[in-house]
């Protein structure tokens, strides 16, 4: 069975919807879905914005879409190279408008753990580590994260380790879009084939859902843009995002 709006498309499209006109938006390492979201926004939306990425690209015109979100092809066509020291400084001095940051666990305050499952000193799983998060999450004007798995293990009441604080402006999962409201994550919308009850059941932290409803389906331009970025569905297959874990059984 195939969803009318694939959870992969749900994540990428809803990440793209955080991009705003005339802003500076950044995607980093280990960030294939935000990379696709930024490129989708460039193709699907009429407004101008600056897309910078960890490959040094500034509004690049990549000749192909890479598997690795830090691949140098993401700087192809750029008129400048904005390298790592530069984009971190941009963020810490408060000029990074929108920053996509990875997370293994997210809590109700929008804080993240990317360090370890279990105690940091005796980890069950040693995770990649914070990367940009601890510095960028508190200093970016807005930061947004995503999880391909929405469960009580990933959307937690208490983080195993507090890698980065400061709070996300948005979190996108296969079934839900959260935004920051009064210092906590609040549900903004859910996948049309999901429901408020399902989101509550699969989320370990409590959240406000006032005004939330099913997400707007992708526009034709959003669909076309994503199809042009992933014409053979390779990214969608590699990402392996499912609406529900049961769907695979």
């Amino acid at each position: 069975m195939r969803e009318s709006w694939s959870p992969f498309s749900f994540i990428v499209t809803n990440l793209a919807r955080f991009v705003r006109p005339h802003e500076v938006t950044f995607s980093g390492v280990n960030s294939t879905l935000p990379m696709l979201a930024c490129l989708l926004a460039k193709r699907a939306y009429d407004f101008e914005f600056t897309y910078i990425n960890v490959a040094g690209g500034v509004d690049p015109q990549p000749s192909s879409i890479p598997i690795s979100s830090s691949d140098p092809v993401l700087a192809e066509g750029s008129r400048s190279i904005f390298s790592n020291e530069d984009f971190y400084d941009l963020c810490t001095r408060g000029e990074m408008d929108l920053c996509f940051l990875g997370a293994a666990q997210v809590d109700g305050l929008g804080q993240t753990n990317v360090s370890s499952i279990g105690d940091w000193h005796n980890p069950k799983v040693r995770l990649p580590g914070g990367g940009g998060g601890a510095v960028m999450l508190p200093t970016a004007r807005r930061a947004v994260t995503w999880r391909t798995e929405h469960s009580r293990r990933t959307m937690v009441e208490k983080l195993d380790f507090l890698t980065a604080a400061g709070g996300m402006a948005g979190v996108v999962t296969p079934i839900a879009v959260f935004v920051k409201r009064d210092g906590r994550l609040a549900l903004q919308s859910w996948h049309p084939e999901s429901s408020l009850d399902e989101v509550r059941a699969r989320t370990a932290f409590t959240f406000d859902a006032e005004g939330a409803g099913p997400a707007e389906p992708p526009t034709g331009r959003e669909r076309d843009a994503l199809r042009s970025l992933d014409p053979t569905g390779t990214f969608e297959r590699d990402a392996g995002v499912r609406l529900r874990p049961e769907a695979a059984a």
Partner: protein
Amino acid sequence: MSTSKIIPLGELTSQVANGSSLALGGSFLHRGPFAFVRELIRQGKRDLEIIKQSPGYDIDILCRAGCVRRTRAGIVAMEGNFGLAPYYRKAVEKKEIELEEHACASLTAGLRASAFGVPFQPCGGLHGSALPELNGWQKVADPYGTGEAVYVIPRITPDFAVIHANEVSPEGDVRVFGTSHWDRIMSRSAKRVLVIAERIASSESFASQPELTLIPHFLVDAVAVVPRGAWPGSCWPHYEVDYPAVEAYLPDGADVLAAHLAAAPEAQEAAHA
């Protein structure tokens, strides 16, 4: 009148004593000094400290071969659908290596302190994170009355910065295409700089566009020319990631590691050196 700094890879690598700290250039699978890393393994180096904001293949294979005592890193992964770096992960979980977990920018701040000749460097952000307490980082109040307080990171001075470059001059000037990742600050913070390059370009070529030079010759101690030396990673615009080779590297087994080392370009070229 300058002397050429170009020497064989083996000789360059032999300058690294056991126990050295090494800042490695590049990021994840891109433009890393991977031929050098493999040569460290072939030479049986031990107790190394690896310093890199975003290591991946390099730290993983060094952990796999038992060369590492400690690492300071921001984010560690293979990337490109390969996820976590498995041998690194195992080494940390089994406490075979010591990890100093950084935000990438805090590691850069420590390198900046070294490059700027000061004992510590303020680093924006970090507020609320558990990393400062984990690492004993101190917060300093602004003495100028803004009411701001900022974390300061202690100086990090690697024994060596090791950079994989696109082009070098015979005298040791270094050019990189695309992003320089953190190579620039590494080259300014370390005690010595070693460079592995895809190819030599003429001194005249460097003189015609000196603004393109990332590292001037007098900061560079030695250079080895190793075409495809960033394999199985990319070196833009010369070649892309060799994903099948990365995949073939991952399974367990000493024979797998040996086959991977033997398949590396610098091993294939060794007969010609």
